[in-house]
């Protein structure tokens, strides 16, 4: 097991290295002055230029520059934004919790919805149920998320007026930021309108969560269905049935535990897609996460911010993928035997 985690960490290390190399090379590939791209200062005054170039080791060769670039990145000095001059590192880590919050809620939601549906669909005795659930999931799978989002907004927000369409919390409530996770911050806060604010935050979460969860839910339904079908046809399940266990007992003791393993693995594989979709969702719902922030940066050609955004987003995907792999391994003893990582 140790060997497995060790290999995974090595993998993480190399991928991170590759991403850093790519981000570093962006300094040279983006239009404009290299030093400007590195520091984030748009117009560097001539008298400060040499001094800054010395600090950023531009007078040395690329290898040295790269080395110092890595040091700066690990120090949290990610440069400043072209547009407003504030630290990129702070901006990224202020926006990150919002994205994580949204993605977490969407994942939880899709697990809660998809697994029961997937199990129901796997039942061979009720083909009509299987067909209708599958049809629904294909419908969800093929519907573009931005379109779904706009439909939801049109029906539930604009026509019915049930849900707000932008942000994480109404501006009415002034909740001090502690962790950056809205729900947790509200619970931690010491304000008289806590309940009211909590209700409002849940309201703001509802549509974005549903929209973001649409894709993972459909993937999960199909994976769960297929894998449950396979498991329920194995000889050990047949043996358990023959033993006289009830359907529920078979499902709980043998079916779920084995059937859900590929689901965990699948989730890891689709995490990258989830993050991409989160960016789309954030833009549509003005959700102040990393995705919206990064898209804004792209619109404004804020190169240092784009670099920071790439680092943060890709970092998030790697860590999550490897985390899912490790979880998978914990549940599946067979995986440990392979001993090598994959991504």
């Amino acid at each position, binding site marked *: 097991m140790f060997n497995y985690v060790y290999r995974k960490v090595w993998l993480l290390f190399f991928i991170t290295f590759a991403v850093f190399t790519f981000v570093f090379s962006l300094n040279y590939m983006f239009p404009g002055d290299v030093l400007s791209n590195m520091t984030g200062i748009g117009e560097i005054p001539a008298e400060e230029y040499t001094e800054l170039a010395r600090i950023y080791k531009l007078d040395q060769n690329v290898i040295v520059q790269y080395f110092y670039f890595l040091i700066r990145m690990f120090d949290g000095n990610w440069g400043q934004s072209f547009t407003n001059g504030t630290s990129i590192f702070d901006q990224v880590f202020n926006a990150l919790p919002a994205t994580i919050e949204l993605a977490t809620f969407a994942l939880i939601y899709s697990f809660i919805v998809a697994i029961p549906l997937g199990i129901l669909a796997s039942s061979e005795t009720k083909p009509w149920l299987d067909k209708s659930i599958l049809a629904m999931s294909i419908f969800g799978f093929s519907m573009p998320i931005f379109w779904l989002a706009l439909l939801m907004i049109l029906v539930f927000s604009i026509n019915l007026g*049930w849900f707000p*369409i932008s942000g994480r919390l109404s*501006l009415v409530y002034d909740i001090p930021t502690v962790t950056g996770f809205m729900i947790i911050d509200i619970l931690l806060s010491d304000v*008289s309108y806590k309940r009211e604010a909590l209700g409002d935050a849940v309201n703001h979460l509802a549509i974005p969560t549903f929209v973001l969860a649409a894709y993972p839910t459909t993937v999960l339904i199909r994976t769960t269905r297929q894998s449950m079908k396979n498991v329920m046809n194995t000889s050990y399940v047949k043996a358990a049935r023959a033993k006289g266990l009830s359907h529920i007992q078979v499902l709980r003791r043998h079916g779920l535990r084995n059937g859900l393993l590929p689901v965990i693995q699948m989730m890891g594989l689709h995490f990258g897609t989830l993050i991409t979709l989160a960016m789309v969702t954030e833009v549509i719902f003005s959700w102040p996460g990393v995705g919206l922030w990064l898209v804004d940066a792209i619109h404004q050609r804020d190169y240092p911010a784009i670099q920071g955004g790439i680092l943060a987003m890709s970092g998030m995907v790697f860590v999550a993928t490897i985390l899912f792999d490790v979880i998978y391994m914990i549940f599946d003893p067979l995986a440990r035997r392979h001993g090598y990582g994959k991504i």
Partner: protein
Amino acid sequence: MIKTVLAHVVKSGNYKRLWLLLFCNLLNACGQYDDSKLAAKTLLYCSEGSPETFNPQLVTSGTTIDAVSQQIYNRLVKIDPTNGRVVSDIARKVIVSSDAMRYRFYLRKGVEFHTTNYFTPTRTLTSEDVLFTFSRILHQDHPYHDVGGGQYPFFEGIGLSDLIEQIIVVDDLTIEFRLVDPQASFLANMATDFAVILSAEYGEQLQAAENKDQIDTKPIGTGPFKFVQYDRDHHIRYHAHEKYWQTASELQQIIFDITPNNSSRLAKLLTGECDVMGYPTASDVGYLHSKKGIDIVETTSMNVSYWAFNTNVPPFDNANVRKALSYIVDREAIIDAVYFDLAEPANSLVPPTSWAYDNTNYVRPFSLEKAKELLAQEGYEDGFEMDIWAMPVQRVYNPNAGKMAEILQQNLAKINITANIITYDWGTFRKRLAKGEHDSVLIGWLADNSDPDNFYRPLLSCASASSGSNRSGWCNDEFDRNIISALSITDHDTRKAYYQAAEAVLFEHSPLVPIAHAVRHKVHRDYIKQVNINPYGGIDFSKAVKKVK
């Protein structure tokens, strides 16, 4: 774990409450409009942009004025939006000398400044604060003159520093302004959203702390709301000023949700994330008419769009040619296509809301025959070629100058005149315009105050012809005499007679053709009452109430 909780809920018969709770939370449907809730005491305004500063003295932009002026500050006098006359504000009484050169203001007693986490006032408003406010603008050696750039565009525009001879503090609550020349529009200028009163005590405190810039970023005033928080490009939060000298607001806070995108603003109004929405587009207003729960308030604001001819360039130096061209302006078609019916056809330079407006028609009706006739008389029956400059930006008074130019172009073609539509970016456009490189231009004017002088003098006087804001470059002694005479008298009826005479001269010479007065809209949810849209300036929430069912 979840199972046991659920089991418990079901057993105790609580499941109905559980569902209700979930439902309420999700749908916002139950008890949201309970008066004790913060949401019921908060007004949300979706504004179209971020303010540049929190001091209206420094700007002319409507966005900043909307966000700041009426919320944080008071003026010495203000304009009554119903009739455009000047009424008292924190000056309870004003005595004007008969020659209109001395203005004595008697201030109210006990006008409290805001108490915030960055400033605690020790005294109420005195004449010292008024002196501080205007010294900052007038005296270049004043410690605050150069703070925030040292530019006071509105006051420079009206020539305040040349106008004021001295300001005399008579006593704690009495202050007198002495002018160099008589000027009847002085009070109207003091009533604009730019002439706000700052706190001298706060100024001293910041000066001692060597943090003078803060006076414009963390403002202190006497107005109905006090500054709490500003997140750039995101929101502004104000709390009610509980010691406001008038009735304190029923609201606990007002929030400006900064939403530059037109359709997002509209969507937020529909979902109730905004109670009041600023600057709906003309097409939005049409759509909103069909929606329940939305009130639309329209006022003709103090603006005019016009077509000005450069009277220094032939053939436009010929009054008959100008008159002929003024016959081809089809106001009906323009209001329909450019304003989507959200404007009134102009029949004089000043809009009907001005007190100087009279019902006489000072414009020529649309008639191609008469235009042809006049042109033939001047020997232009074969027409000529001309340029129409169309301003490149969208303004309240003219939402689409390009389209307006196209309508004129078509009508001109019918009288054999070939018109070229010309446009540059806004900066270049204004620069070249001031140089007089144009034949004719489609542009407009939005008044800063209720005084009709604000239309006539900047647009058509000889002085403005040399400074460039007179787009016709037109200078007429009779016209000038009338508008200057109107300035030296305070009596409205006498002044009105002068303005009518000036308007008649204008009609005779037609250096410009007034086209339309655009209507300004504020749309809000029907549970918001008494949001005041001042036709001369910013939005005012001081009396707004949120009455939710």
